């Protein structure tokens, strides 16, 4: 079962422009250190997926990432990029084929945005025309105006700079991207925006991405697979977000994902993933007796008032019905409605805020689609194991 908000996929991507990545018993010990920074780390990232490395500070997630592009060198084990060991290539050459995005971004202050983005293509010897075209393409891809290319990094905001950082990493179309807390230094609103954009981008270009963060919510949102790491680079659990939240492997993971992991799981699915309850309706102008009878037949003390176009207007308590035909004034206006794309998490929030009354769901055209209640949502949690 997939959902709109996460980047979950169903198996390895067949996209050729993405590479698979494999950690084989990787170890890293610094000379003179008592304990290893990373000990026997093994996992596999299928091509085209986002793998998030998450854990508390000092767990070795950034170290693990930097082992991939040999910014740090392995002391044990191997890392295979598309089946080929990373130690086979010269570091500089290897890195030109891996996109690298860091938290402080590191744009070259003395070069224009366009020149910054063109860095790796130039290192690879692309000709001027091809490079210029690619720079324009990337600016559009990360939602920046074409004229930004002539500005200097000092003139841009933090969010804009981070977009340039991503564009720069994508410039030579690398099969793998490494991102180390790329949105960590951005304010929450822009962070959410950048996360959404990256997901949208990924849906289009499908790269293999290793994404490091300390924020479990970001990990759940961004990751196709999540690797929860412990101090010493130990892999506590490596699974899809849903499995991680439903079945934490141990105490540490359970604490790390948080006691509200049940609620977090609800962010992974939306209303469209479940079967809606039929709404009991009453039409404007309908004789009261009919409405009362319908309600009694189904044992309900409330109806949803709809208009001629099947659009819900409000809640109609049966008690309000008297002799007159059903009128708009009899109904209580709806506090909120939900759409099919609304996540179960948000749906639950709306239900609870409205006194646990069933939530009205409408289609894209505004017509009543059905109802969602508390039981339905909690049942959804139970079945998704």
């Amino acid at each position, binding site marked *: 079962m997939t959902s709109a908000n996460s980047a979950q996929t169903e198996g390895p991507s067949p996209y050729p422009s993405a590479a698979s990545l494999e950690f084989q018993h990787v170890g890293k010990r610094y000379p003179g250190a008592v304990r290893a920074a990373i000990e026997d780390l093994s996992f596999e990232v299928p091509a085209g997926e986002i793998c998030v490395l998450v854990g508390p500070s000092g767990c070795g997630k950034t170290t693990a990432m930097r082992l991939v592009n040999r910014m740090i060198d392995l002391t044990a084990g191997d890392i295979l990029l598309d089946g080929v060991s990373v130690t086979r290539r010269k570091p500089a050459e290897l890195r030109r*084929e891996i996109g690298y995005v860091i938290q402080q971004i590191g*744009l*070259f202050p003395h070069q224009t945005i366009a020149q910054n983005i063109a860095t790796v293509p130039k290192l690879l010897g692309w000709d001027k025309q091809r490079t210029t075209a690619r720079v324009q393409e990337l600016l559009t891809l990360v939602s920046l105006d074409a004229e930004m290319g002539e500005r200097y990094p*000092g003139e841009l905001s933090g969010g804009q700079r981070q977009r340039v950082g991503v564009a*720069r990493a994508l410039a030579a179309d690398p099969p793998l991207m490494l991102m180390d807390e790329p949105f960590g230094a951005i304010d929450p609103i822009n962070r959410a925006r950048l996360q959404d954009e990256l997901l949208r981008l990924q849906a289009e270009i499908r790269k293999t991405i290793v994404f490091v963060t300390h924020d479990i919510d970001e990990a759940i949102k961004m990751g196709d697979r999540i690797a929860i790491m412990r101090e010493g680079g130990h892999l506590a659990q490596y699974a899809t977000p849903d499995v991680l939240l439903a079945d934490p492997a141990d105490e540490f993971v359970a604490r790390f994902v948080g006691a509200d992991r049940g609620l977090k799981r609800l962010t992974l699915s939306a209303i469209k993933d479940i079967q809606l309850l039929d709404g009991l309706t009453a039409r404007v102008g309908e004789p009261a007796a009919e409405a009362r009878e319908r309600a009694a037949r189904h044992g309900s003390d409330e109806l949803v008032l709809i208009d001629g176009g099947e659009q819900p207007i409000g809640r109609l308590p049966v008690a309000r019905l008297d002799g007159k035909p059903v009128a708009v004034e009899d109904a209580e206006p709806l506090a909120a409605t939900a759409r099919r794309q609304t996540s179960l998490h948000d749906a639950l929030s709306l239900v609870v805020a409205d006194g646990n009354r069933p939530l009205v769901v409408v289609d894209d055209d505004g017509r009543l689609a059905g109802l969602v209640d508390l039981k339905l949502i909690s049942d959804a949690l139970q079945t998704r194991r």
Partner: protein
Amino acid sequence: MASGPVIPDFGRGSSCVRDNGLFCWGWVKQNWSDTLQPALLQHILLTAVAVVIGTAIAFTLALAAHRRGWIATPVVLVTGLLYTIPSLALFQLLVPLTGLTRTTAEIALVSYTLLILFRNMLAGLSGVPGEVKDAARGMGMTERQLLWKVELPLALPAVVAGLRIATVTVISLATVAVFVVDEGLGAPIYSALQQTFKTEMIAAGALCVALALLADFLLVLLQRALSPWMRVARA
């Protein structure tokens, strides 16, 4: 030591000169091409040679110190020591070694540029933000590419600032070179001082000051031209 400015000569000099007026424009015009202009050109040449050689030496040392940190301390000590020696004395000290030649003057002048040029270059190179270097390496630049494409361009403003200080320092010190070799604006200044010939004192002195201010100004322009990104900081 005097190269022969016109000495107030009763009968030949103008009345202004004979009375040792403060500034006789006539004298300046008369003696421009045989006294003042050659001195000015020699001065510029002395300065240019010293600055160029000093830059080359300091640059090499700075690159070495950037690569291997321990080099910085001894270099700063030696160049600092040279810097502390009063110029007059340094010139005199070198005479027995290399004679009363332009070389002696240049050696002394170069020594005075080394400290400031070295420190500024090293400071410029060290001032490159760590994340910029990390990103550059992460993108696949070799150490050499990192140096030439990133570190040196970013160090340039500091280097030119140091160049500015070094240049005006040399222009100033080159006047003292008159004690070693009869060249530069120091020559007319010194001979004027010997004879308390006011016009020449002011003419040569003002010329020297003007040269220094002009050089300083031009180097400021150069600094601005080489670092366009520093001018467009975000509001």
